[in-house]
């Protein structure tokens, strides 16, 4: 039994009832082992069933529970009440995205960006089932593995000041994932991705603030992926100027 309470100030926006967002204060039992998401679930189950938010796995895998906690983008299933208590916790929807309701953001823009950069495998050579698997060495896997651990939580977009001001920027996770496939020895989609990746709303908009890498819960290091993509575009450009230059299909 908890003998003290933790206090949360939760962003509320219910466009069907009120056109302006407000903050609502809730007191929940303080437990050492509770994460912020547990507190939200307590509110939903015991105090106020109208609160809307996304979550699923409760273990930092699904990427759906991202919110601003005291101004910083966090997976609410991975930060504890004890990290903040007795400070009041201000819980808001992820910054930079349109809000649908309460803590639920509209992810359409992000999803479109993933499509634009073709964040999927475009095989270099088609193989039939009889021909077997696409083989890859551990060294080839190591080149992109870090970028492949992205869970699409969009915390990096909420942290990125460039995306915050210019939503046309392709942004950290989409670039990191494009880079993930570009660096995959089985992939041949570099040219197809290049148009989005290297146009004026692509990698060049990044001013290397690096906050995306700070907030990423999976240590993807999208900032590094962006700089790496800039270098490969530059190498390609100079290669294309010399007659003996051969464009590489991977970075």
């Amino acid at each position, binding site marked *: 039994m908890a003998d003290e309470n933790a206090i949360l100030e939760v962003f509320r926006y219910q466009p069907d009832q009120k056109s302006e967002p407000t903050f609502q204060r809730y007191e929940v039992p303080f437990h050492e082992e509770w994460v912020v998401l547990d507190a939200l679930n307590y509110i939903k189950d015991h105090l106020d069933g109208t609160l809307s938010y996304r979550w699923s796995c409760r273990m930092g895998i699904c990427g759906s529970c991202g919110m601003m906690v005291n101004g910083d983008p966090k997976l609410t299933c991975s930060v504890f009440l004890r990290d903040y208590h007795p400070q009041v916790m201000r819980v808001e929807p992820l910054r930079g995205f349109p809000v649908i309701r309460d803590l639920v953001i509209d992810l359409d823009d992000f999803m479109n960006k993933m499509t634009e950069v073709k964040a999927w495998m475009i095989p270099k050579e088609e193989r039939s089932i009889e021909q077997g698997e696409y083989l890859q060495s551990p060294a080839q896997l190591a080149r992109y593995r870090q970028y492949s651990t992205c869970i699409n939580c969009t915390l990096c977009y909420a942290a990125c000041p460039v995306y915050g001001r*210019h939503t046309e920027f392709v942004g950290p996770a989409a670039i990191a994932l494009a880079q993930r496939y570009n660096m995959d020895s089985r992939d041949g989609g570099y040219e197809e991705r290049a148009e989005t990746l*290297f146009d*004026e709303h692509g990698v060049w908009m990044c001013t290397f603030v690096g906050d995306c890498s700070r907030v990423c819960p999976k240590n993807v290091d999208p900032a590094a992926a962006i700089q790496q993509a800039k270098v490969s575009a530059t190498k390609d450009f100079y290669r294309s100027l010399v007659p003996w230059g051969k464009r590489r299909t991977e970075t």
Partner: protein
Amino acid sequence: MPRSKEVFWWSLFSAGGVVSAFFFPATIIITGLAVTLGWVTAEDLHALVQNPLVRLYLFVLISLPLFHAAHRLSHLTIDLGLAHARRPSAIVCYGAAIVGTLLAAVGVITGL
């Protein structure tokens, strides 16, 4: 290739960054400390800059960091949320770097 021209400017920016980070400190030590501390004389330096390779070095040392600075400054428009000012600011910043580069070229060629 419908890709951004930025790749060219970015390459100058990154090369300028390398020059600023590695060659500037060395040059500052030579011109700022070594002469002051009497390790080399001003005459030695003067003799040194007569060498065409040293002049080429000075040209690179002046020009590339100008493009580094131009790129960084023109990207301030993005940081400040003034995307519509991106083009005019790029013209001013890169323009200044180009003028600086031309002046540096004249300087190292004529020995001014």
